[in-house]
């Protein structure tokens, strides 16, 4: 059993009991262990990593590479050099699009994506498709958001070069056929790009078991600081890919008109790296490991069950996504009849309850839901919990939900 109170004591921002933070899918909060790790880096070993030949710089390099090791181990990468530090999951996906896809996708090829994707796993592929005259193929979910393995199978053809799919939808939860995707994708000679931004923070992820070719994730959704994230990629692919950004510290030799590039992973990390935040991200991962993903998932599921049960009692609430609480991954997306999600969020804010409202950077999905589920507005409200949220908070939220229509004049 998770001792939520003990956990909450580690999070400075959660000490004010008036606030209920249910916008964890947008960004999580950070425990003092993460804040202290970043602070300690700057206080004790700050210098430019990978360059200096003196004690502090060597210390900074060690801390940075140790952080990479923690991340690599966490997703079970075969080697540390398969982890590229980037700013966030968005940058990781852009790296794959610009470096891998722009080199490997040709005219007439197909890139398979889902209607569920966050814009960060859609716009880079739109760019590639436009530039290369390739075709984007969209997987459309069932009404409950689920995309089956059969659907994926039928979308893949001999022309498919890339399948880019989210592990966990930031609107609907665990609805994509992640487990067996690689087999289907590889059989067609294509690569599998998984967007793990909402997946890696909430479940144990094993890239070797998934056999994905690329996996993107952000530090800030998993207790780490903003501005740091990672791309996992298979070494054989990274070796053949050209650099994404060019400049300092990613080279071997440079002449006036040419350059050769550094070994992995540094080939993909141009310029001074964000070492302190990488250290912070690693501290966040260690915190999650200590809590344990079984406990994390159990707590999230318990809270989601309270939310789903509570919402079921309110006849004017529509919940999107699967019926099974276990598939929600902490995310409950809903609408209230007659009420615009922005007004819902504004009146909940007055109760010090923070949720997200809007299109969730998934406008094609909003359009799809509007049509399929007859949504009044092209937007939804979303409550998203993490393991440090309490049952009491979930009940407070449901109490407030029951009053929203009254507050908005119904």
């Amino acid at each position, binding site marked *: 059993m998770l001792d939520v109170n003990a956990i909450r004591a580690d999070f400075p921002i959660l000490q004010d009991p008036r606030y209920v933070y249910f916008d964890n899918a947008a960004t999580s909060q950070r425990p003092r262990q993460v804040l202290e790790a970043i602070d300690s880096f700057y206080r004790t070993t700050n210098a430019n990593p990978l360059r200096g030949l003196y004690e502090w710089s060597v210390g900074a390099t060690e801390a940075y590479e140790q952080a990479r090791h923690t991340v690599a181990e966490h997703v079970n990468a075969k080697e540390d050099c398969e982890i590229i530090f980037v700013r966030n999951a968005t940058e990781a996906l852009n790296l794959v699009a610009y470096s891998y896809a722009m080199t490997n996708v040709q005219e007439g090829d197909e890139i398979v994506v889902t209607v569920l994707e966050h814009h960060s796993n859609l716009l880079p592929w739109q760019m590639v498709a436009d530039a290369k005259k390739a075709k984007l193929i969209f997987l459309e979910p069932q009404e409950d958001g689920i995309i089956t393995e059969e659907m994926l199978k039928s979308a893949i053809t001999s022309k498919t070069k890339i399948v880019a799919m989210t592990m966990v939808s930031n609107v609907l939860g665990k609805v994509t056929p992640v487990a067996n995707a690689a087999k289907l994708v590889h059989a067609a000679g294509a690569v599998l790009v998984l967007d793990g931004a909402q997946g890696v923070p909430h479940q144990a992820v094993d890239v070797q078991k998934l056999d994905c070719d690329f996996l993107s994730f952000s530090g800030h959704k998993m207790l780490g600081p903003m501005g740091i994230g990672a791309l996992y990629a298979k070494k054989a692919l990274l070796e053949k890919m050209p650099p994404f950004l060019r400049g300092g510290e990613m080279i071997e030799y440079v002449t006036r008109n040419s350059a050769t590039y550094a070994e992995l992973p540094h080939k993909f990390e141009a310029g001074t790296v964000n070492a302190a935040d990488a250290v912070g991200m690693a501290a966040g991962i260690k915190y999650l490991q200590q809590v344990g993903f079984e406990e994390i998932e159990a707590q999230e599921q318990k809270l989601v069950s309270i939310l789903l049960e509570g919402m079921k009692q309110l006849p004017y609430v529509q919940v999107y996504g699967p019926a099974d609480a276990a598939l929600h991954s902490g995310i409950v997306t809903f609408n209230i009849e007659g009420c615009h999600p922005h*007004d819902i969020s504004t009146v909940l804010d007055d109760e010090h309850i923070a949720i997200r409202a*809007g299109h969730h950077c998934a406008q094609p999905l909003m359009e799809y839901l509007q049509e399929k589920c007859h949504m009044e507005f092209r937007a939804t409200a979303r409550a998203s919990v993490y393991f440090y949220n309490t049952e009491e908070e979930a009940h407070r939220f449901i109490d407030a939900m029951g009053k929203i229509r009254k*507050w*908005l*004049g119904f």
Partner: protein
Amino acid sequence: MELKDLYREIVNEHNLHPSHKGDMEQPSMILNGVNPSCGDDIYLQLKLDENDMVVDGMFNGSGCAISQASADMMLDVIIGKSKDEALKLAETFMGMVRSTADPSEFEALEEAAALESIAHMPARVKCATLGWKTMQRMLRDGESETPVSTENE
């Protein structure tokens, strides 16, 4: 005004029972205004006479309560005003919700002055200004039948 009071006393009424919602016959100008990030979408229709007086106005569309109520309150105040007066009021309203206008001018906005507290909710400013912005584009810039957006402000 406290937030829930603002909704209860002003916004809900104009949102749920608007005086000027619908389509009018033969408007002189019609313009679509949208906030893509929230899906607020209004069609503003104005009728001006030969002396550039706003003699009638209606809006249609959908969106959050603040965008809809604000458009309704705007029409309450600008119908019967000259084009120049309406544009002056738009300036005042924009200044009010961005905390840059002189509070002594707010009275001219009549009930729309109640949205003053939107200035403390930066995320909702574009909802409140959608109707006004659309009206400015029509009367000041002469736009008609083309969409405008208040994104990226």
